[in-house]
């Protein structure tokens, strides 16, 4: 079956613009996570969803970042007024259930470059 799909794979945007990053999780997975990976660093947690609701958004760096999952499947990470410091690879992952220790399956990421 298909894995976690993220689109676009690459996005270049100008400083100050708005961007949306899309994540299609594995079918049937109820939990969905967003991470951000800066160059030379490990992924950092941003937010996770159980179904449609954001169960924990404590990793979002500021109010320019927002994520939705309106139907409990596809999720969109939205970044307003982008800054050069937002440049990173944004990773999405999904898991069957929201239980510690459950394997999370990662997409290949969206590389965002803000110029």
């Amino acid at each position, binding site marked *: 079956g298909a894995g976690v799909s993220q689109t676009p794979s690459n996005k270049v945007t100008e400083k100050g613009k708005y961007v949306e990053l899309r994540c299609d999780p594995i079918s049937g997975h109820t939990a969905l996570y967003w991470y951000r990976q800066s160059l030379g660093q490990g992924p950092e947690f941003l937010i996770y969803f159980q179904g449609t609701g954001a*169960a924990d958004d404590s990793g979002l760096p500021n109010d320019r970042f927002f994520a939705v999952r309106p139907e409990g499947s596809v999720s969109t990470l939205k970044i307003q007024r982008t800054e050069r410091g937002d440049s990173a690879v944004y990773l999405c992952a999904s898991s069957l259930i929201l239980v510690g220790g*459950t394997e999370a399956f990662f997409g290949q990421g969206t590389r965002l470059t803000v110029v």
Partner: protein
Amino acid sequence: AQSVTQLDSQVPVFEEAPVELRCNYSSSVSVYLFWYVQYPNQGLQLLLKYLSGSTLVKGINGFEAEFNKSQTSFHLRKPSVHISDTAEYFCAVSDFEGAQKLVFGQGTRLTINP
């Protein structure tokens, strides 16, 4: 809160040699432990995980890791590496209470030389 330290940012080894990638963690609560691998231009893939039970965990591609609670370590080992093992390796922890909210280390780049 948890934290993870991967002690080596880069590890070069020769093909067929053994390798150990070191990982130490800090946490005030019990944790689950993971190793993920990221091959060039691919997403993160789970190598192995420790949830409970035997402290020696075997994973895919011949890798294994040993959980040492007293030393708060979870080092990854392979007795004989192959060129195809060249990749970035990430150690991660999550606590028992939450979901798969992973805290990652900075990664170790494993380079296999012929």
